[in-house]
């Protein structure tokens, strides 16, 4: 197992290099002049503009720019934004905010999704099962952007239950954005759990457990749910990485100063270094959580062995 994890971790290095180059190239290919955009409506003297271009290597061809970026990376220098703020500082500033948002989202996803799925699966085709089926279909079919604006309008503006935007009210400000961010995955977890539980209820080993005279609760908890949760837990783990992508939209709509919001702003300002730094970090998290899932999978299911 240790060797397997080490090999997987080593493999992330070429993946991250490739990913960062792709992102780099995409930012490079964006139309428009980032220095102009930075200046906005104010006139910018040609001398200052030229100096900025030189400072950020904007005049160099793509490959040269990228080589210089990688060179700086070797001593942990991720570059700066156009206001000379180190990208590393931006990340360390904003990552905790996104971490909180993701944590809230995963909490909703796991608790609501699992509970709904388990009860739907135990009594499949019952009233509750159908309710879950309809509501999850609805949630899955609505784009997250629409869901975000809708819930912001209804629960924030009209009903006033939650803050409309920002994070001034501590954890409470994360509830609504967290739920929005979780919604799609939550619906999927409910479906996955439901199917998995319903399938396991009919498994031969559950029949054996009953034939052994185990109490009903033991049959359900130990021999049905434990087995059913394997695919669900692994999905939730892998989904943490994917939630970071969804955070870009959610943080933009709810004006939450996390890394998602930072990427959103940086793309608009064509802040190459910021975009590359943060998105590459997101890619890393994605890979990392997938690795965690694979390890977890082997822990949960003794039939899975690596090496």
């Amino acid at each position: 197992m240790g060797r397997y994890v080490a090999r997987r971790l080593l493999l992330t290095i070429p993946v991250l290099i490739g990913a960062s180059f792709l992102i780099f190239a995409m930012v490079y290919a964006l139309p428009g002049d980032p220095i102009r955009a930075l200046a906005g409506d104010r006139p910018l003297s040609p001398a200052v503009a030229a100096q900025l271009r030189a400072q950020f290597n904007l005049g160099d061809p793509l490959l040269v720019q990228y080589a210089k970026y990688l060179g700086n990376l070797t001593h942990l220098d991720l570059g700066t934004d156009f206001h000379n703020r180190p990208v590393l500082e931006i990340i360390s500033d904003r990552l905790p905010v996104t971490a909180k948002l993701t944590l809230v989202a995963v909490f909703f996803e796991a608790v609501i999704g699992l509970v709904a799925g388990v009860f739907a699966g135990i009594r499949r085709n019952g009233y509750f099962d159908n309710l879950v089926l309809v509501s999850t279909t609805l949630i899955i079919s609505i784009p997250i952007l629409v869901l975000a604006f809708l819930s912001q309008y209804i629960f924030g503006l009209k009903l006033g239950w939650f803050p409309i935007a920002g994070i001034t009210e501590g954890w409470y400000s994360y509830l609504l954005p967290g739920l929005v961010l979780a919604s799609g995955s939550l619906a999927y977890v409910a479906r996955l759990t439901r199917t998995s539980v319903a399938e396991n209820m009919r498994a031969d080993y559950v029949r054996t457990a009953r034939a052994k005279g185990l109490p009903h609760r033991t049959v359900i908890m130990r021999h049905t749910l434990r087995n059913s949760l394997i695919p669900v837990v692994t999905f939730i783990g892998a989904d943490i990485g994917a939630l970071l992508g969804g955070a870009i939209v959610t943080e933009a709509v709810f004006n939450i100063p996390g890394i998602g919001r930072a990427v959103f702003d940086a793309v608009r300002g064509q802040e190459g270094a910021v975009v590359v730094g943060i998105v590459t970090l997101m890619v890393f998290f994605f890979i990392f959580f997938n690795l965690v899932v694979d390890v977890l999978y082997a822990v949960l299911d003794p039939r899975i062995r690596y090496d």
Partner: protein
Amino acid sequence: MTSSSGYISSTPALEPNPTAGPVLEVEDLHVEFRTRNGVVNAVNGISYSVDQGETLAILGESGSGKSVSAQAIMGILDSPPAVIAGGGINFQGRDILKMNEEEQRQIRGPGIAMIFQDALSALNPVYSVGFQIGEMFRAHRGTSRKEAKQHAIELMDRVRIPAAARRVNDYPHQFSGGMRQRVMIAMALALDPRILIADEPTTALDVTVQAQVMDLLKDLQRDTGMGLILITHDLGVVNEVADRVAVMYAGRIVETGTVDDVFTRPAMPYTVGLMNSIPQVEAKGGRLQPIIGQPPNLARIPSGCPFHPRCPMARTGAAAAPDRDCVADLPPLRVVTVGREAACHYSEELLNG
């Protein structure tokens, strides 16, 4: 965690009724599946009894209701859609079907235990075999986890799994088919059941392993004096270990008797067909003749004798004796000679002809 009631040492459900006869007595048992496409009559009034130390073999084509009747006795039918539509199951003189849920649970394991055909799917893949065997002690006797594991090792030794102490923490997939079936047997025998139901215990195994597992079962039965209900396709095995045979067709018992009687002189044409269609050790080289036609659809069982569409002896109309028209009159299971019963209007002709 409050169900301490399950751990009390004397369980009333398990105490024998002193006036009782056989350990297990099934009376006119009916099981049906109420499905969207209609009612499937899987078991239609079967009766049998098993005494201490006795082995009853149940034979029949697949789909004849052997497993469903066993599951009904175990209380592990899928309901819905399964419904026990009538009859009684007396265990040590008490009707299980009249007991409450908790009393029934207390019988599963210490009273009646069951082993299944496919041990790989019947064992939970995510728990060690020691844990799964030990669960019997923990659930029925409140034994500690550690002690239960110790019992598990002893049981694995008893079913002759080599290096039991080392393998107790292994998972089902780490065992061979034969060893896995031994684990199932160890689990079933953990609490010294009075009755063991073995549903095709060797069908999934290699021929050489089959014999070893059957030998083991036979030895264990001799040591414990439990009654054994053996559901099998293997007539050789039946010949070797069974005292009595019950042949099932379309959810009914159509013939019963001692192994010798039934095998040497069948009293029902279906039994004859069954003998000719299953390979037997003795009759090596003999031609196998499958029974013509399809097993009946249990949602629409044929009128009269359910076997009549496939029966070479079937008589109807003018050819039939009064009230013995195979297409119209259902033959009851009746005594044909001493100690044997058959459900055929013309058993005597088979026996004498």
